[in-house]
């Protein structure tokens, strides 16, 4: 129940505060601790079970003995439509092996790369039987682009491994604390304030360095399995940081007949199937979610048609055929639930229909986040660092390069940011937070809780989902539809968000998540309007081609005196594609309109 009593405060001092306990957060915490810093790792869920971490199952570990760095870079550059920062891409690849070795040393489960003359396979230990089984480690189907290799591993188990290691080296883990706002003093970040659903008080962390690793910024789409509320991007934006990469859309699919059901590793039966029964098959196209470059241009090459959506049909992404090794996973339905008639027909012909929309509202994996000012993951504001999905280092450009890149990126940037934060903590003297800043933050955090009556946060979130999720807003974009959606989100920001109410601390968390998601969606819509071309995972119906050199820029978003302001950061010319190569050759994967122009043209008439 609401109390009108003053809310008690607990002040906790530390050298380094890590916010979010996925791969990036765990690496940051462990590495900062190994550098001698006192480290607190907070997570609004439970470290070892929360984050996107449990959802992933590959790790792109570059091994100079068997891999060619230029091949890997080529995959990244071309999949990302030349929008990646190549220094960062290279850094991620080059440091990935060391992070992988760390994971293995900490006791990470499965994964022994067994080259053994058989490419793209790995040997793994079955969790239940303790037997060694061979699992297919398929090449990523990247059309004409070079294959990439990576490790596959059950990250849900490895989240627990990372937690154990963090505890072992002396990281102070505080679960179920949701950080709401950064604390600022004299232009520096000096910590953060948070709440817990389990106790009626405020947690004030005083830290010499803070690392934000709360993951991607979406809208809580069902079946996603991670929180994805963009807390880091929103908190950093409010504190004055620059955010980038919001226009690239996340395009993972769901089962057409069970769109809210998280397919793949769902329960122990399926896990066993996944591990035991699948036979190595090096000739299959990888149809699992780590598939590469899932952007519109790729969809077109799969003879699939996004404009189907305009006819009231699901925009099919994949038809997983029975010849593919993943068919066994995809073809399983939840027990006791019949398929739809249409999907039954698909099944009878040996196919599974997957449609767009698994992580709606998010940006493509690790493509968006807080703009770093150096290669130490440091933000523009001293004392603030970011890693993983919260870091906008642009290592992967306009679309995800595939198979295990995000996991490696999170580990590498986690490590870099943790070490940098520890270095800062060792260099600067004790800090203090003024009473004034604490009371400002307290008022901000608890305003929805103190308010008597107002809008429901869950309702506001659902409202925004219905504004952003439709196919005509973020999948097939156009100026007028983006502007319409923006006006709606601005209304929510202006009239609803300031009047959100919370009856308890659970709802207080929801209120702030809703506020953060609204802010992220405003950034997404504004950058999507600003980018008047199609590229990577950004498809504009009204500008259906890449536009060189106009499009070779990163769009940065920043608060300037209360106004969301967009600026361009040109991509260095040395990283541009060769304009002497004709467009069709330069960009081998075409957007749908090129292959099937009559659909788009027909619609415009």
């Amino acid at each position: 129940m609401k109390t009108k009593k003053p809310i008690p405060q607990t002040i906790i001092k530390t050298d380094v505060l890590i916010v979010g306990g996925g791969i990036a957060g765990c690496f940051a915490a462990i590495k900062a601790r190994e550098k001698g810093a006192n480290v607190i790792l907070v997570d609004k869920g439970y470290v070892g079970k929360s984050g996107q971490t449990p959802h992933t199952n590959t790790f792109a570990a570059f091994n100079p003995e068997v891999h060619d760095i230029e091949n890997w870079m080529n995959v990244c550059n071309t999949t990302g439509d030349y929008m990646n920062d190549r220094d960062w891409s290279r850094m991620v690849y080059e440091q990935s092996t060391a992070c992988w070795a760390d994971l293995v040393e900490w006791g990470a489960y499965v994964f022994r790369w067994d080259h053994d003359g058989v490419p793209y396979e790995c040997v793994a230990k079955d969790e239940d039987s303790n037997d060694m089984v061979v699992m297919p480690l398929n090449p990523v189907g990247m059309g004409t682009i070079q294959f990439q290799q990576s490790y596959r591993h059950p990250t849900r188990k490895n989240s627990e491994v990372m937690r154990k290691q963090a505890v072992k080296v002396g990281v102070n883990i505080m679960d179920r604390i949701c950080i709401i706002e950064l604390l600022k003093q004299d232009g520096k970040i000096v910590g953060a304030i948070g709440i817990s659903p389990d106790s009626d008080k405020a947690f004030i962390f005083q830290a010499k360095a803070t690392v934000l690793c709360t993951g991607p910024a979406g809208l809580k789409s069902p079946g996603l399995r991670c929180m994805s509320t963009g807390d880091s991007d929103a908190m950093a934006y409010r504190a004055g940081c620059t955010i980038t990469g919001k226009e690239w859309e996340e395009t993972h699919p769901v089962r057409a007949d069970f769109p809210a059901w998280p397919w793949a590793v769902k329960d122990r039966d399926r896990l066993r199937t996944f591990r035991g029964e699948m036979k190595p098959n090096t000739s299959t196209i990888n149809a699992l979610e780590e598939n590469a470059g899932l952007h519109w241009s790729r969809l077109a090459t799969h003879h699939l048609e996004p404009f189907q959506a305009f006819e009231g049909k699901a925009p099919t992404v994949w038809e997983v055929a029975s010849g593919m090794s993943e068919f066994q996973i995809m073809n399983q339905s939840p027990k006791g639930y019949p398929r739809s008639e249409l999907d039954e027909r698909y099944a009878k012909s040996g196919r599974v229909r997957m449609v767009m929309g698994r992580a709606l509202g998010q940006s493509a994996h690790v493509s968006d986040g807080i703009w770093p000012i150096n290669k130490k993951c440091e933000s523009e504001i001293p004392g603030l660092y970011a890693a993983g999905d919260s870091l906008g280092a642009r290592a992967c450009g306009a679309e995800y390069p595939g198979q295990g890149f995000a996991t490696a990126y999170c580990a590498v940037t986690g490590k870099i940011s943790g070490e940098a934060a520890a270095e800062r903590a060792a260099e600067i003297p004790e800090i203090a937070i003024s009473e004034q800043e604490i009371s400002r933050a307290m008022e901000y955090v608890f305003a929805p809780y103190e308010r008597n009556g107002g809008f429901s946060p869950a309702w506001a979130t659902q409202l925004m989902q219905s504004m952003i999720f439709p196919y005509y807003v973020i999948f097939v974009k156009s100026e007028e539809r983006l502007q319409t959606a923006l006006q709606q989100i601005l209304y929510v920001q202006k009239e609803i968000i300031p009047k959100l109410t919370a009856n308890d601390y659970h709802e207080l968390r929801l209120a702030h998540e809703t506020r953060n998601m609204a802010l992220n969606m405003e950034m997404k819509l504004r950058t999507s309007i600003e980018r008047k071309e199609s590229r990577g995972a950004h498809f504009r119906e009204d500008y259906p081609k890449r536009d060189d050199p106009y499009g070779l820029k990163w769009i940065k978003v920043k608060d300037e005196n209360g106004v969301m302001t967009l600026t361009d950061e040109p991509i260095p010319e040395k990283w541009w594609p060769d304009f002497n190569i004709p467009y069709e050759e330069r960009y081998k994967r075409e957007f749908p309109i090129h292959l099937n122009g009559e659909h788009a043209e027909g619609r415009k008439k």
Partner: protein
Amino acid sequence: MSVETIDKEKCNGCGICVKACNQDVLRMGSDGKPVIKYVDDCTCCMYCEEDCPTSAIFVSPVKTNPILLSWG
């Protein structure tokens, strides 16, 4: 589309599901068994069902949208 049932007979009260629930839908009840407290906020991630050592939890895979009211 949400966590539907927790079988109190099968449940051993270990509390793993409460930890696994990122959305804070589940809480430990006074009887030492978890309760579904904020069902509207379930995002159907199924971690609770997946992690339950006694298979006591059932999450419905069926798509439904809770009817939410604007006022808090």
